[in-house]
């Protein structure tokens, strides 16, 4: 197989199965989905949640992102409008995984147009069938593991005396990981179609998330040492014991209160008031 053919068939190291859509450039130009159109879809996906609404959630953002691809695939205005209306149905998932669904949707619409088979209802089925699972996956990894890991890394870096480096470094790391993931998800979704879920499974995001959360606990422990050390600066000996116990009580009390539904805003006011009162009474 020539290098050009190999490049045309390559998707990503994770993909072992799935039909590669863009085997030949002649077929791509038949349907009008050029790299430029794909780039437009991807860029529009960055505004997916702009028009989030309580009824159909991400439907407007999804349809907005799909519009350039539908314009390329359906020259007939009536067919294009039918396709656009299809993508105005209820849709809600994690924004970073929504681009994967976008890629798959473009793939399935293109298969339908190019090869004349495959019911278009399959696109809706894929979207509704995966949005819940992808939402949980994305929330657990990106919001629940990667973000806390970056925030705690930045906090530890500040504590160790490298504030600017820590903060910028943490953000850069998060940005690079998420943009790379979104780009991969979109391209893989477009090239593999529904089979991309197998590639996503191989990334094993839940396991990665578990390790990131363990890393967060280590960072929290370091931050706690930092707080006790800083409090020790306010007084040594017996005072350090009292203040250290205060930290322990604060963390334990907050954990119990937040589990009972007491908001963090209220806890912040209460903690501040108690600290000022204790300082005034015992000074």
């Amino acid at each position, binding site marked *: 197989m020539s290098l050009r053919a190999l490049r045309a068939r390559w998707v990503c190291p994770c993909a072992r199965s799935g039909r590669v859509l863009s085997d030949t450039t002649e077929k791509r130009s038949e349907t009008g989905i050029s790299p430029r159109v794909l780039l437009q879809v991807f860029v529009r996906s960055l505004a997916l949640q702009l028009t989030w609404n309580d009824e159909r959630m991400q439907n407007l953002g999804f349809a907005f992102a799909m519009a350039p691809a539908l314009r390329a695939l359906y020259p007939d205005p009536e067919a294009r409008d039918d396709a656009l209306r299809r993508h105005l149905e209820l849709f809600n998932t994690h924004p970073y995984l929504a681009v994967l669904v976008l890629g798959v949707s473009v793939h399935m619409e293109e298969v339908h147009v190019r090869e004349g088979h495959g019911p278009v209802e399959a696109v809706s089925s894929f979207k509704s069938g995966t949005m819940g699972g992808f939402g949980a996956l994305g929330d657990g990894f990106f919001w629940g593991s990667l973000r806390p890991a970056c925030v705690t890394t930045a906090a530890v870096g500040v504590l160790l005396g490298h504030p600017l480096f820590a903060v910028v470094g943490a953000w850069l790391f998060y940005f690079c990981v998420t943009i790379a993931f979104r780009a991969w998800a979109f391209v893989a979704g477009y090239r593999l179609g529904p089979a991309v879920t197998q590639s996503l499974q191989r990334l094993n995001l839940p396991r990665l998330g578990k390790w990131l959360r363990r890393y967060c606990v280590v960072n929290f422990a370091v931050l706690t040492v930092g707080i006790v050390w800083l409090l020790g600066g306010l007084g040594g000996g017996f005072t350090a014991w009292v203040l250290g116990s205060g*930290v322990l009580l604060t963390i334990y009390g907050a954990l119990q209160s937040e589990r009972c539904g007491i908001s963090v805003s209220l806890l912040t006011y209460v903690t501040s008031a108690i600290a000022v009162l204790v300082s005034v009474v015992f000074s």
Partner: protein
Amino acid sequence: MDLIGVSFLGGLLGLDRRGLGQIWVSSPIIAAPLVAYFFGVLDVGIWVGLVTALLWSYELPVGSAIPPDDTVISTSAVYLAVDGVSRHGVGVEAASLGALLWCIPAGELARRLDGGLRRFNVALSRQIVRAGRDERERLLMRAQLMALVMLFLIESVSVFIAVSAGRFVLPWLWTIESPSVMQGMELAGLLVAALGIASGLLVVNRARAWLVIGGVIVVSEFWAVLGR
């Protein structure tokens, strides 16, 4: 940077929360130091940014949930804290905490307004679904632009309200000349950081993480006492 400037910057950064990009520049750990950078008091921005990011890390934007707007809270708190540090000579932790406590309601206001915008978007969605073939795509583009402008206004107006009211009220707090109150504010600042750790522990939800933290505190206390 003046009041209009910080409101404009807050509005731009706030768009990243759910409107445009979601590349995390709206995170308090970026937004707050960025605002503080313009004033040359980076310490304030980093303290406010980290504590705000930790405190509200537990409130995730899952499903239809809207967390308090920590971008509005952090950008307005930095402006007011810098005012306290540079013009009234207040300590960094005390000024940052005072400003943070003042700006929390602004985050709640922005949250309510965002909820209102989402309900407004329902009307836009219904209009587009019912629209005729020729105008659907045009209405879709118009809806996106409208939502962009309204989201920007929500973020910038919330920052403006918090900062303009804070500029009148907070100087009264900074003029309290009681060392015990100021020391209490510094103590409160560190305890609020501990609250942030608790919030973060709830997010990571690791079993026995609480015991690890408790053990570390006890060991640190021994070290603090014996080391002196």
